[in-house]
């Protein structure tokens, strides 16, 4: 018989602490029942044990949701580091950024990582949204998670917007001036809202303090909470959307264990994303212009790139439509999307159907042609304001051009419907593609194709 040496007091204490962390009771340990810490408990709060093969395929999601999470975590960690050195006051903010870049160890890199992650996040979320839409991930039972996702999107845009002002350089100051200036055109409550957001009549000390507080406390907290809810709903819906499986026993059984197979894939994707951002940030510096000078405006002054599509619209149609009606319609449309068509259970199939894919390509091409034609036509061909001076400008530069443009688009959509004998889901998808492509064209035009005085120009010219 073997005589066990009684464990020393220190060893006992250590093993007790260990047991308390891994949630094994002492009795369970004595009885020889061991629960594994990581795979056993923590992970399976979020994940099932096995997922269908299709769900684990990289091209089912392109890992975009996971990459978004990685970027958010990078933003939170670098943001907290920046916060240690940043001073949210107009006479100190710019200098504190210079200090971060020059004197803080790795400061320049950390600022670059924050800057690039923020910009990549906006792009990755846009792509994630497209992935979800085109695989039908917004249909029952995931309808509400689409809405939750939209809230996340708005919160991230708000973070990008409030962060934009913080460096307090010429770029920041005038971009925020311009985009809050758009609120002047919103009737009734626009001016009031503008004063609240700016913390006064102009961008100044109170704006900076407000933006800083919102950027580093309110929004991160909101994003964190809503994100957790988003993930929980993904799990509750039974994981990501996958194509309906053939009802054979074999096919239904085709599943992959989450640990380690899926987790390993996700880890690789996450590490690749982190590596990409870190290397990119080591190579390219975040822009920093001269210190903000409220007396000296740059030419041209542009809104931050994620809002620049609105500025482009403002050049063509009456402000009431450009900054209020059209953005609200787009937001409302996106919110309503999952509730417009859920008669079909089809999900997990890219572009809904082969027909849907062909129609989608046609509408994307049409959107590029129509919006380019609209922009060029407005610049070089018709001048309605001078042609019809008697009518109020809401009609001449608002109702009239929008009616003409929508009419043309409607005719195109009817043609598309006839041509392909499409059902309503395919039509909604085509309209969605048209609107999204149109907005991208507006964004690219204003961002890269407008030079001095906002006149059309080649980016290299």
């Amino acid at each position, binding site marked *: 018989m073997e005589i066990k040496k009684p464990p020393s007091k220190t060893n006992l204490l250590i093993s007790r602490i260990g047991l308390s962390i891994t949630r094994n009771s002492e009795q369970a340990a004595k009885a020889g029942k061991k629960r594994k810490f990581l795979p056993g408990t923590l992970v399976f709060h979020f994940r099932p044990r096995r997922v269908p093969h299709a769900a684990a395929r990289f091209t089912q999601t392109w890992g975009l949701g996971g990459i978004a999470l990685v970027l958010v975590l990078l933003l939170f960690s670098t943001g907290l580091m920046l916060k240690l050195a940043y001073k949210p006051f107009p006479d100190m903010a710019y200098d504190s950024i210079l200090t971060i870049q020059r004197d803080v160890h790795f400061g320049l890199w950390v600022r670059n990582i924050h800057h690039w992650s923020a910009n990549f996040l906006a792009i990755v979320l846009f792509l994630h949204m497209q992935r979800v839409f085109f695989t039908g991930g917004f249909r029952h039972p995931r309808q509400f998670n689409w809405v939750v996702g939209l809230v996340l999107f708005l919160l991230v845009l708000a973070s990008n917007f409030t962060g934009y002002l913080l460096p307090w350089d010429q770029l920041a100051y005038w971009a925020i001036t311009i985009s809050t200036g758009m609120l002047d055109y919103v009737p009734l409550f626009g001016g009031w809202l503008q004063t609240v957001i700016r913390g006064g009549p102009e961008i100044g000390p109170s704006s900076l303090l*407000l933006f800083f507080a919102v950027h580093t406390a309110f929004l991160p907290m909101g994003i964190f909470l809503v994100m957790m809810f988003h993930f929980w709903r993904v799990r509750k819906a039974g994981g990501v959307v996958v194509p309906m499986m053939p009802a054979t026993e074999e096919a239904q059984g085709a599943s992959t264990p989450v640990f380690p197979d899926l987790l390993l894939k996700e880890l690789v994707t996450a590490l690749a994303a982190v590596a990409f951002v870190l290397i990119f940030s080591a190579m390219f510096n975040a822009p920093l212009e001269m210190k903000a000078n*409220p007396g*000296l*405006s740059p030419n041209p002054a542009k809104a931050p790139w994620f809002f620049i599509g609105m500025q482009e619209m403002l050049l063509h149609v009456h402000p009431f439509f450009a900054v209020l009606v059209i953005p609200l319609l787009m937001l409302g449309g996106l919110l309503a999307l999952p509730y417009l068509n859920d008669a079909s259970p089809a999900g997990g199939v890219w572009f809904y159907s082969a027909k849907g894919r062909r129609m989608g390509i046609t509408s994307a091409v049409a959107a590029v042609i129509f919006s380019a034609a609209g922009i060029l036509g407005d610049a070089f061909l018709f001048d309605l304001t001078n042609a019809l001076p008697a009518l109020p400008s809401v009609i001449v530069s608002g109702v009239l051009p929008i009616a003409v443009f929508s009419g043309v688009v409607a005719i195109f959509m009817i043609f598309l419907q006839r041509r392909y004998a499409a059902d309503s889901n395919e039509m909604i998808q085509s309209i969605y593609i048209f609107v999204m492509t149109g907005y991208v064209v507006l964004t690219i035009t204003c961002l890269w194709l407008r030079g001095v005085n906002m006149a059309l120009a080649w980016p290299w010219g």
Partner: protein
Amino acid sequence: MKQQKKPKETEARPVTPRRGFLNMLWWALGALAIAELIGLVVAFIRPGKKASQKEGYGGLVTCGPTSDFQVNTVTAFQRGHFYLARLKSGGFMALSRKCTHLGCTVIWDEKKSHFECPCHASAFNLAGDVISKPAPRALDYHRIIIENNIVKVDTGKRIKRQRFSDDQVTAV
């Protein structure tokens, strides 16, 4: 279990008109509480009154004796964020330097004798009227007080207008 529970619940809580009304009252009170909370937060973050009493921009700015300013000239007052213009008639106008398009700072071009906005090329004449778009209306202006031939400008309030008219000018 579940099946047993359901009928019990409906039995125990018949929704009488009175209970319905009281329920509604609770909801209304809840909504009121939330509205108050939102109102409080909004009132808190809204800019306070202090701003309008300070020196410089937002307060009363003293420009100097009327004789300092020639007819048909413009003088910039950086501190007050406005331009003091003396029109042909000899009257004064204090024009906000904020472009009515999207809020950039307009600059006075001496040679062309008009205000120009660098951001998207709007232009305004000496009295603030639009001479080239995209600006939708004339520059805002401030109230001017002339006491003992000293010009003072009240920058606490920007006055909006569509276009120039004579009653906006302060005569000497």
